[in-house]
């Protein structure tokens, strides 16, 4: 097996035993990126020279007997994470030349263990999108079928795993942006509970919904990486100060005796038949493993997309006010004064979807509409959160599809933003409620595209979703299937 096909836990053992060096592993991935990325476009920036220097430093560290779980492991980050001294664009023309002055906490924690940064990954601009088509650097293609989208917004982070261009990546999830691309690309994607991972140094989209999480080849790697990045950070006042459990130990507890809820609002007419089949098979697997199933109801599910597109856009319109062409970012060459400079710089720097969401959010917050839209949405958010609280009184976990269909075709939904928004119906409620969720490979469609299974847990219940995901993975072989490139 090639080095680039392996997991963190495979490579870590070989590094520790000195069977392989970090420089060899890093070169294996750099060559893989060079040969595959022209047809995938997962990377915006490849940090080749620095990666090789960092790999050599990791090898020295290992030689001195200092080997942490990520020492010498080559990873890549969604280009929404600040990386000191490295270009950070958020896939926007606005930040084309932006060099981050400091590291995001999640990355700083990985870096301090000696993780090697291969580069920065493509995404929808400012994380606004479900297809990775809204990038100023062109769309990322799905490695399983290049006519299809990889999902979004962390499309590059998922495609890089599927194309074996990095061992593991980080993404962010505001309405499904880790889980949906993980599902579409056949990898594991975990959205932790809001507050579990620091958002410091992550370019803000919708601050009450954004959360950082790992995207990996298997569940073990997701547990391992979450353990490194999770935990309280004084620099993020919304990060929660509660102990980080040993997620690796949780994996071995099994699902026997767990009660899993099937929300009836998620198994609807119009669900793609291949997705329905994958869910039915997954339920059968879990029954054999000793889990018990009950039907539950999340009655406000149908209102989640509308709620999300008011709250997320309102927060975005406020967060993105910082791009004014004065302190950093794009500045228009021609202007007739300070206000005009700001208007021209923003209009030139932002893409269409970003402008559309800023407009929608500004409208929802504007005088006369604030109560009717923004406050109304916040009240419905309470109802959606209560749905989950109620369901978790009788079950340990929920099992649902990640998306109603496998990855759609590039260009298929770009003309109709509302249709694009509705493709996130099964992932959005989770962010509104602030709970945790994971996408695990659970099937391949008739036309050869991966299908993911979503497991949802209580706030700070990452151990139970990881343990259920691990048992499923061990009982099936979906995570070993690879895109032919």
């Amino acid at each position, binding site marked *: 097996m090639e080095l680039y096909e392996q997991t963190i836990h495979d490579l870590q053992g070989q590094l520790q035993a000195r069977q392989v060096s970090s420089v060899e592993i890093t070169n294996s991935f750099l060559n893989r990126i060079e040969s595959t990325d022209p047809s995938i476009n997962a990377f915006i920036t490849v940090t080749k020279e620095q990666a090789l220097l960092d790999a050599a430093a990791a090898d020295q560290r290992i030689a001195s007997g200092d080997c942490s779980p990520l020492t010498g492991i080559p990873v890549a980050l969604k280009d929404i994470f600040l990386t000191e001294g490295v270009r950070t664009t958020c896939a926007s023309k606005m930040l084309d030349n*932006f060099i981050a002055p400091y590291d995001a906490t999640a990355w700083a924690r990985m870096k301090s263990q000696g993780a090697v940064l291969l580069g920065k990954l493509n995404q929808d601009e400012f994380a606004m999108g479900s297809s990775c088509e809204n990038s100023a650097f062109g769309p990322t293609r799905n490695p399983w079928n290049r006519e299809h989208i990889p999902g979004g917004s962390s499309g590059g982070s998922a495609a890089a795993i599927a194309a074996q261009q990095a061992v593991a990546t980080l993404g962010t999830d505001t309405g499904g942006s880790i889980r949906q691309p993980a599902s579409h690309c056949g990898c594991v994607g975990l959205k932790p509970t809001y*507050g579990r991972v620091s958002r410091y140094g992550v370019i803000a989209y919708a601050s009450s919904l954004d959360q950082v999480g790992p995207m990996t080849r298997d569940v073990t790697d997701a547990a391992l990486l979450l353990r490194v990045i999770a935990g309280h950070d004084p620099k993020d006042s919304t990060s929660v100060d509660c102990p980080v459990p040993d997620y690796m130990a949780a994996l071995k507890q099994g699902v026997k005796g767990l009660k899993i809820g099937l929300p009836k609002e998620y198994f609807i007419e119009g669900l793609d038949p291949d997705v329905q089949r994958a869910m039915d098979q997954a339920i059968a697997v879990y029954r054999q493993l000793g889990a018990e199933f009950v039907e539950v109801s999340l009655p406000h599910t149908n209102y989640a997309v509308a709620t999300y597109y008011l709250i997320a856009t309102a927060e975005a319109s406020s967060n993105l006010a910082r791009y004014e062409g004065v302190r950093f970012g*794009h500045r228009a060459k021609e202007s007739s*004064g300070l206000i005009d400079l700001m208007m021209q710089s923003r209009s030139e720097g932002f893409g269409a979807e970003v402008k*559309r969401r800023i*407009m929608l959010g500004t*409208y929802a917050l504007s005088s006369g509409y604030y109560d009717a*839209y923004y406050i109304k949405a916040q*009240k419905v958010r309470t109802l959606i959160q209560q749905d989950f609280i109620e369901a978790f009184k009788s079950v340990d976990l929920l099992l649902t599809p990640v998306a109603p269909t496998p990855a759609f075709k590039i260009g298929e939904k770009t003309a109709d933003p509302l249709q694009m928004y509705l493709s996130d119906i099964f992932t959005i409620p989770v962010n509104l409620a602030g709970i945790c969720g994971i996408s695990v490979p659970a099937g391949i469609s008739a036309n050869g595209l991966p299908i993911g299974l979503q497991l949802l847990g209580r706030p700070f219940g990452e151990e139970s979703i990881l343990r259920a995901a691990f048992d499923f993975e061990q009982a099936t072989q979906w995570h070993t299937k690879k895109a032919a490139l």
Partner: protein
Amino acid sequence: MSINQHEIEHVAKLARLSLRDDEKQLFTGQMEAILAYVETLNELNTDGISPTSHAVPMENAFRPDCVTPSIGHDRALANAPDKNETYFRVPPVIE
């Protein structure tokens, strides 16, 4: 609720966006469709429901009020499109 081009222009001004005519036209139609969709929220009676602004119940996060080092002028100005010594430079604000 429908939205017309005049309102689009007003919102664009609030958002400090200068939209081209084709963008105004496109956004008017698209925002109208999205706003019609979010109208479904009015099917729900939310009297007496308190709004949720944040999913995790938290008190304010306080830290000691003491001076710590900041990133400094050089790094703060490193990405400035235009600067003058230790200042960001902008077009004249006062005539």
